[in-house]
């Protein structure tokens, strides 16, 4: 147990990095767009399948685009999907809702419906088989008594870099300022001259973009299927609540904590990973419902 500990901890960090990126994406959608997107996992799944398709090819169409380059395809594509979804579906729900709470309830239900729509469209396109691809960077790296995979290290590094870039974007740019204002008080931000519908839709789009990139990263080191989304969505929700709603650093800390706990529990008993997450979630709700870095 003890001699395996460093390996287990490092593995937990590697898992946690990508998990943090997924949670960050959800956080921007709920923290600013006020859409509790439980269809988040489906965007991740789409990202993973786009990478798979451009690399392996689809039917008679040859692929050959490296998964690293595919990030530049899956991200923007999902940004468009997210942006359009918010501009059409969620904006009209928002303008019709009598209160913010009613909007949250209705958008939750709409996202619930989206799970079934996206998942089944994906099954129609990709026939519902578990898939994986062989990637040249997917070689073993022995370290600290355990064997890691180089692809997972790449995915981890990219997730961290993208997370930091996004953090700087939100904190240092004009658009980032508008996003933070919209998160605090959409009505007042609108009065100050911010195009609120545009900013909210952009945020939802950014969330979808990050989810798509996270899906592409996941596909580099794990097998993918059309129904993979649910598990990741639940993980992201727990990380987001743990880190604190609306906090980007919180999502990262939460991601590492959940990643390490998951890695330890997997080492001891793989079947108890989800129950362990839930135990943590329960304790959190009772002790600190606003999360580690929440206000």
């Amino acid at each position: 147990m003890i001699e395996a500990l460093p390996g287990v901890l490092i593995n937990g960090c590697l898992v946690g990095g990508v998990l943090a990126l997924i949670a960050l994406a959800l956080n921007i959608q709920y923290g600013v767009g006020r859409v509790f997107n439980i269809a988040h996992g489906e965007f991740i799944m789409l990202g993973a399948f786009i990478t798979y398709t451009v690399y392996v090819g689809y039917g008679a169409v040859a692929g050959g685009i490296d998964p690293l380059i595919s990030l530049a395809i899956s991200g923007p594509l999902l940004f468009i999907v997210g942006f359009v979804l918010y501009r059409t579906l969620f904006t009209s729900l928002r303008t019709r809702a009598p209160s913010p709470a009613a909007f949250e309830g209705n958008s939750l239900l709409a996202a619930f419906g989206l799970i079934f729509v996206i998942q089944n469209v994906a099954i129609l396109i990709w026939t519902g088989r578990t898939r994986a691809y062989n990637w040249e960077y997917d070689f073993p790296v022995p370290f600290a008594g355990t064997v890691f995979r180089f692809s997972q290290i790449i995915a981890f590094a990219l997730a961290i870099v993208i997370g930091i870039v996004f953090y700087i974007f939100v904190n240092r740019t004009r658009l980032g300022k508008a996003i933070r204002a919209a998160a605090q008080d959409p009505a007042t931000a609108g009065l100050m001259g911010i195009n609120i519908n545009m900013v909210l839709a952009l945020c939802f789009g950014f969330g979808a973009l990050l989810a798509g990139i996270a899906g592409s990263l996941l596909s580099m080191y794990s097998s993918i299927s059309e129904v993979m989304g649910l598990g990741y969505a639940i993980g992201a929700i727990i990380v987001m609540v743990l880190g604190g709603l609306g906090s980007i650093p919180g999502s990262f800390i939460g991601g590492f904590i959940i990643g390490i706990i998951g890695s330890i529990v997997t080492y001891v008993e793989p079947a108890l990973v989800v129950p362990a997450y839930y135990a943590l979630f329960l304790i959190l709700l009772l002790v600190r419902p606003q999360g580690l870095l929440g206000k």
Partner: protein
Amino acid sequence: MDIATFISRFIPRKLWVPGFLLVLLIVLATLPSYAGSNRILFLSATTLMYIALAVSWAMFSGTTGYMSLAVAAFFGIGIYTTAILRPLVPLGVVFTAAGIVSFLIALLVGLVTLRLKGIYFAIFTFGLVVLIGQLAVYYDIHVLGVKGHPVAPTTYPIMYYCMLGLAVATVLVVYLIRRSRLGLALLSIGGNEEAAAHMGVNTTMVKVLSFAISAIFMGIAGAIFGARQSFIDPGATFSVGYSFSPVLMAVFGGMGQLYGPVIGAAIFSLLDYWLSGRFPNYYALIFGVILVLVILYMPGGLVGLMPKLRNGLGGVIAKLRKGNGAGQHANT
């Protein structure tokens, strides 16, 4: 004399609804004697099951606005209870146990999560399906050392009558709750929870209790459904789809009235049967699209459309009368 004028002349108006319900109940109770095939019986039983699920879901989530996405969790608990207890005890005991287990688990979940903001509750119930499913799989493999449970299935008429009893009981209990202090308290929480608390409503107690009561019906529905299966695999039992359908049905029917979810469930079970036979690859997709469209364009559901429809028709009729009576003033 046609039948409509006959009814309106000889049967007092206040007996129309009870009379209709009585006739419906007699038709349903005698269905197995003339149903002909087990397929029709199974379809009717499934319809009744979804009525029970949708009505009990709407009783809590529809009135309070706390979205529970855990129908599948309690439904699955019912199925799993059947898997464990069916070889040991008679059916009646199995169903009672399923109701009690669901009630207790819902009580526990509610006590922990319902003190908090609504969104935490939705989050927790969303994952509850996966959590309980994993625990059941773990219990199967590591404690019992089995993979799935073969059970002796009941007959179709037994399943049908159990579902009929359950659906009637659910509608009756929810009807009574809606008219009781508890129902009023639930409505007040849906309207404004803080104000309700200030008026002296013990909001936590009301929410937890009604959430747990709604779980009883879901658990029993699962147990009856499970008793018809010949093999129960906990991995496949806890599927989010069972949370999805009742929510869709209740939202489609409309949650403002008791009969909304009933109508929604009846229409959708038949539609589900028809579509899944015809387009097995597309029907989940179609249902997803319908849910999104209903939330977007019919937030009140079918029930919410009724007053609009009546007003619209009333307006048309009034216009026609006006046109006939005073044609020359029609343009003014």
